[in-house]
């Protein structure tokens, strides 16, 4: 392809990526090293608030932002270096916990608690999504031709549902008096509270994520299965390979690039787990890195937001994704180079 044609095709998308990905990233990166706050002063304020019958007036010292000539708060921006990262990571507490011989205490710090869950969630669901997706693809591929359409449609449904709605429906099924909990309670004769402890919530989250994402893996694998070389399969049959050996030595190597692709997408998606935390209302027991960032960004009733800490947390999340992706990217790169020789 001529360079000019190439540039004309790729240019707009490079521009968009620069505008919507690179620039915000730079801005977040720089914000994580600075802190902006209102210049404040202590003033004595008399506030009168209603009781039911009479009004009570109290005079108190209030810490209020100073306004400039236009009536806008005076903002001060300071470079704070790594302070925001220190506030998020709280390494002093981490070392103290290790020094005291109680490494479990590390998980009481929000960031590490969130990192623990995010990593376990990502790494546990990855093989399950690939395995279940492959299983459905093989089943559908071997199903009667007339059944394939309906089966594909039904197995795709979970992927179509909006994640928040999906997690909410799981929540309503399994919450204290949900339909499924009520059925399980009747069957077991015990009081079941799935949302009262962390491990059952996590189990439900794994289940939900696999249920939700496996159809995506299935569609990709199913497409891949259509291109398996029939000659190789037939010779494998003639050589006496059983079903499992054919899968292991013919089909999976053929699907390998697709498996790497699914793994890449899944790792990126899963590391940003957020919907489940909101849908399952699990903040008391389980939080994720993405949730932590959003929580820091959400203004409280007084309008305060921890923007610099949120930026630091977002940068750390991104670094985590890159670290997870490196082995897969290296593999893809090697294959790519190997293939071109």
């Amino acid at each position, binding site marked *: 392809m001529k360079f000019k044609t190439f540039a004309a095709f790729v240019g707009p998308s490079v521009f968009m990526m620069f505008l919507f990905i690179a620039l915000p990233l730079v801005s977040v990166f720089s914000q994580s090293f600075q802190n902006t706050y209102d210049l404040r002063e202590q003033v004595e304020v008399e506030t009168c608030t209603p*009781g*039911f019958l009479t009004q009570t007036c109290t005079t108190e010292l209030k*810490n*209020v932002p100073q306004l400039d000539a236009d009536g806008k708060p005076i903002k001060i921006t300071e470079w704070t270096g790594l302070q925001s990262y220190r*506030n998020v990571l709280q390494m002093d507490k981490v070392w103290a916990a290790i020094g005291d011989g109680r490494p479990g205490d590390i998980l009481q710090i929000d960031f590490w608690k969130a990192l623990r869950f995010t990593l376990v969630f990502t790494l546990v669901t990855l093989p399950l999504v690939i395995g279940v997706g492959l299983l459905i693809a093989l089943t559908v591929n071997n199903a009667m031709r007339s059944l394939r359409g309906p089966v594909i449609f039904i197995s795709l449904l979970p992927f179509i549902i909006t994640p928040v709605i999906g997690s909410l429906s799981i929540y309503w099924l399994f919450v204290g008096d949900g339909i499924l909990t009520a059925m399980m309670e009747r069957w077991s004769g015990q009081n079941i509270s799935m949302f009262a*402890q962390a491990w059952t919530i996590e189990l439900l989250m794994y289940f939900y994520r696999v249920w939700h994402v496996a159809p995506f893996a299935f569609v990709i694998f199913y497409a891949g299965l259509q291109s398996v070389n029939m000659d190789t399969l037939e010779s494998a049959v003639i050589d006496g390979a059983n079903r499992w050996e054919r899968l292991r030595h013919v089909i999976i190597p053929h699907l390998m690039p697709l498996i790497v692709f699914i793994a890449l997408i899944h790792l990126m998606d899963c590391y940003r787990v957020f919907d489940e935390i909101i849908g399952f209302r699990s*903040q008391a027991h389980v939080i994720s890195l993405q949730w932590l960032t959003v929580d820091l960004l959400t203004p409280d009733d007084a309008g*305060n937001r921890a923007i*610099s800490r949120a930026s630091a947390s977002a940068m750390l999340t991104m670094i985590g994704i890159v670290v997870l992706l490196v082995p897969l990217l290296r593999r893809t790169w090697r294959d790519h180079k190997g293939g071109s020789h």
Partner: protein
Amino acid sequence: MLKNLVLAGAVSLMGSTAFAACSYENETEIKMLSAGFEAWKAVTDAMAECGNLQAELDQEFRTKQPAAFEANPSLYHIGGVSNGTITPLMNAGTIRPLDDLVEKYGQNLKPNQLIRIDGQIMAVAMMVNTQHLMYREDVLSDLGIDVPTTWDEVLAASAKIEEAGVVDHALGATLKSGWNLAQDFNNMYVGFGGDFFNDDNTTAVNGDAGMKALETIKASMEYMDPEVLVSDSTYVQQQFQQGKIAMANLWASRASAMNDEAESQVVGKVKMAAAPTAMDGGVPATTLWWDGIVIAKNISDEEADAAFRLAMEGMDSEMVTANNDAAIWLVEGYAPTDLAAGAIATATANPAPPAYPSTSQMGLLHTVLGNEIPAFLTGERDAAATLTAIEEGYTTAAKEAGVLQ
């Protein structure tokens, strides 16, 4: 969200109907953003009768309002606020003093309704809200239990109810991790006589009152649904309506839902008493709130005039008579019923509970409380370590916000 949209849609539709109940016709386009509960619906409906009102009733108002009012011209003319949510507007200077407007249109206002900050009227309150003890009268009288007035009595009564097994759980509470849980802690904390801050803006929660508050909440959890850490006001309200719980310290604005025959199975059985005290001679373990309106600064004086006049029309005694049970109204013409008995007893108790502090520090502390207390309630960490974590979390946040040096 959908409900809010429908509500907003319904309200804006009403703008086009006849101006029957309104004393004048409003000709200026007025926009309003407020919370989405029953009392606001009553007020905005009454305002819409004068025409040209676009009201948005949205529970996410607290995150939208500061930025919307900062725009020039402001995206809304009228804002519905409470003592908790007026702070960012005051801090940014985006609402205007109302003294001249009150003089012009506020003849029907009671002095009690005027929120004065530093001598100027900055908001006009329409209702008060507080937590009060809601209890199943039939359950308590069947078991021969007196209405509890202290948290010790609440726990003792809960033990008896639990033993009798007449309901699923003796107690309900709004312990959903985050804002709700933090507010329940605040209630208990003021009940034990705690002050939130020292004079130098550092927090004082890491002390005796904080410890007792945490322990009382934990003790009460024994009589609650094991999943109580996901339970917000609506959840508790529904537990009551379905007869699953016998007592709860819940918002006064939820009381009328108990007698809503369309959704409640316990109509007439739930009674209200003052919020229990946490210690002898102490205040009821709750904070006082008010809800009311503010007018944006970044609009023309004519618009502000029209907006305020319209708001007064929405908060008049005619509206209150038609919606008597929707709130504990401060407006002339309100006739308290049994539903309000608990909240009024709470608000007029001697000593009276404090108003929720509307300061930047309280916002910071509230967030930290909501994030740190769950680890204690789930048993991951002890009370002392939790209070230390709250103190450290607040210090970090306060330094970032420029409140502490």
